[in-house]
Structures are given as structure tokens and as C-alpha cells.
């Protein structure tokens, strides 16, 4: 009986809408409250290849995952830097380490960008 009443009030489509709405609310909540920690993003040829936590020490060798790019990124004590690279100019290896204050290390020959976007600014000139 109860079931019939329920069916009378809500049509099939309405239930679907309700489900979709709930999903929408949950997703919005998740994205709105996403914690704003400092992330290191490593882009290879324009695509995001890694997202690392700046507060967790790690060494990432891109050669492990990407053929021909022998570039090592190290996260240590809240700073990220490029420690090794097979590029000819070594500009990336000589770039300063980047902290949560933000900045970028670029290796043009390998098309690799290591980026920390600070929370306070949208970009750095």
C-alpha cells in the first residue's frame, strides 16, 4: 500500500531527477570544501602528468613513466626542484627551488613545467 502511495506521488522520472539532484548537491559540497593545500603540478607537453603534495617528500623520475624524458623532480622540506635533466641547456636544473609562495620551473627542451600556484595570486609576471 505504502509503495503504491509513493508511486502515486513520485513518477519514475521524478525519482531520477531527485537522484541527480542529490548527486549534484554532494558533488558541489565536495568541490566547494576541497582543502586548499599547496600542490605541485607537473605538466608534460601541456598535460597535467603529476599532482604532488608539497608537504610530502618524494622523488619523481619522469623517465619511469614518460619515454625519453629523463628529468627528476624532488619535493623536500616544502620545496620542489628539478635535480636532474637530460636537456642540453640545464636551465631547469639551475632554476631556484619553489616553495608554497609559488613559482614555476620550466624545461623547454623537454616541455616540462613544474608549477606551484600560490593561493594569494593568480599568476606571476
Amino acid at each position, binding site marked *: 500500500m505504502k509503495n503504491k502511495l509513493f508511486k502515486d506521488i513520485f*513518477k519514475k*522520472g*521524478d525519482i*531520477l*531527477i531527485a537522484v*541527480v*539532484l542529490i*548527486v*549534484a548537491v554532494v*558533488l*558541489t559540497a565536495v*568541490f566547494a570544501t576541497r582543502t586548499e593545500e599547496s600542490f605541485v603540478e607537473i*605538466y608534460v*607537453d*601541456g598535460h597535467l602528468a603529476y599532482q604532488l603534495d608539497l608537504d610530502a617528500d618524494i622523488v619523481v623520475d619522469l623517465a619511469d613513466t614518460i619515454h625519453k624524458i629523463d628529468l627528476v623532480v624532488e619535493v623536500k622540506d616544502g*620545496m620542489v626542484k628539478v635535480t636532474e635533466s637530460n636537456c*642540453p*641547456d*640545464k*636551465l631547469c*636544473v*639551475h*632554476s*631556484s*627551488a*619553489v*616553495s608554497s*609562495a*609559488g*613559482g*614555476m*620551473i*620550466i624545461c*623547454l627542451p623537454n*616541455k616540462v*613545467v613544474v608549477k606551484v600556484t*600560490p593561493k*594569494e*595570486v*593568480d*599568476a*606571476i*609576471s
Partner: protein
Amino acid sequence: MRKKTALFIITILICIVSLTACSSTEQFFVFGTFLDVTIDGISSSKLVGQINNYMVGLEEVLSPTIEGSDLYKINNAKAGEAIHCGEDTMALFAVAETLHKLTDGAYDPTIYPLVRLWNFSGDKFSHVEGKTPPTDDAISNALRLVGFDKVFAIDHVAGTVTKKQGYDNAMVDFGGMAKGYAVDKAMDSLDKKALINLGGNIGAIGKDYTIGIGNPRESVTAYYGSFTLCQGQLISTSGDYERCFFHEGERYHHILNPATGKPSNSGLISVSIVCSDGAVGDALSTAVMVLGAEKGKEVVARISSVLGLDISAILIFSDLSFEVVGQIDFVKKA
């Protein structure tokens, strides 16, 4: 009824998509640097791709190292040979003429032979140790080819650029202007809220953004200070810390003084220019580095009034103090 429900679900799905993917950032490599575009809205990744394609197209016309580009043809031409150029190239020659005059020659794109001599050009620069500056003889030889007004004859009606007699080996590069120009042009094609960043040449569209000025001396790449870049405005920064090398304890950087053929030594180590014209801002940041604070401020005022542009500047001195020119809310980072 079914149709209506389906429509409603689609609407909600679109809402979810726009909520979760409301901002898209993508990076590309063009003009020897990276292009970073952030656009609000759902069709953004397509637009980002379009901007990148547009800039790649511009680079193919303006890069002196891409065979067949307008600048490649000009640089490899003999004196007296008129080279027909595209609209963008001629537009940049026009801006260069104006700025060369108004900066008393501090902005001079014909300095390119010296940029190559110093190995500061994009295709030559590297961070390999043991670099030495060129000899004074080599510098004065290359300096003979520098001088925008004496080297080129520019015909805006015919759309041609011709090397004058005696200057077969002269070369031009709009490296100090093309990136600002490219961002400016890309901004015109967008009606969304967006931030375009081409290697530090940044343009704000439809919204104000907070922009950091790179720290010229810190060992950690933090920013020096920040300000609000209002919509429709662009910022360009030139500094002695970008492309440089050290020899016997001295810093040699890529901002060359067209008068001496050597790195600028004006007391300024970073200059940021904020205005609504990308090409002018980009070129002016270089010129003010060369001119120094006093002369630089005069030139900024002169260009403001002649071109009817609102120009602001952030100057950073070698003792890491700073000065703000114009109406921007720049605050040094604590």
C-alpha cells in the same frame, strides 16, 4: 512528459558539469616559452586550443628562427631587397618605430645581432657553465648594425621592409614586444573571464586578477609583491635575473643597452609595465630597464601622453627597494 524529464535531466547534468569543471587551465609551448590560459566557462578547453593555435600562427610569422617567417626573410635579405610582410609584422614595425623614437633608442629591435653574439637568443641560450662575454671588438663590430632608423626603410603603404645600403648583415627581432602583442591580440578574441599568461606577459579579460611580481633576487622563487591587474590591462616584466650568466663574479643578463651593446646597468633590476597595449608594455619594460628610473619615468610620461595610454610601472632597484609609478595598488610581500 518523458521529453520534459529528459530535458530537465540534461539541464541538471550541464549544471553539474559547470559546477565541477568551472575553470580550466591548460599549458602550451609557443614563442619559446609557456602559454598558460585560464578561462571560466564550460567550452574553455576548445577556446584554449584556439588561442594556442592563434599564437602558433603568429610565431610562424614573427620568429626570426623559423624558416620562411617574415623576420627570417628580412634578416636573410640583401640590402635594397624589399621584403613583403604580413599585417602583424607591419603592425609591430609601426609600434617599434614609435617606441624607438619615444624611448630615445632605448628600445631597439635591431639589437638582435648583439643578442646573438651574447648567446642570449632563445635558440642559443643555455645554462652550461664557463660562459664568457664577447670581446669589446666583437661588440663594437656588431654595434655598427644596430639602429632601427638607420638600418631599415619601412614602407607602410606597400607593406614592405628593406635593408638600407651597407646593412646586409643587419637583423631584427621583436622578442621584446611580440609576446605582449600576442597576448593583447588573443584578448581581443575573447569575451569570457580569462587570464592569459605567455611567459610572464599576462592579460586579464572580463575580471580583475591578483598578479605577483617575480622576486628578482630571492633564492626561493617567491614573488616580490602583488597588485590587482584590472580587466583589459596587461603586464610585462623585464629583469636581469631571467636570462643571465655569471663570469668572474659579475652578472651578465639579456637586457642589452643598444648604446653600449652590453647588459643594462642602470640601477634597475626589474621593471614591470601595466597598460592596455601589450606590445607597448612589453617593449617599454625593456626600455626602462636600459634607461634607469629617472629617465625611464620621463619616457613613461611622454609615451602616456603621446599615445593616450594609462601606463603604470613597478620599478625594483638593485638594493631591492621599489618604486610605483601610476595608479596601481602594488603591495610588497611581507
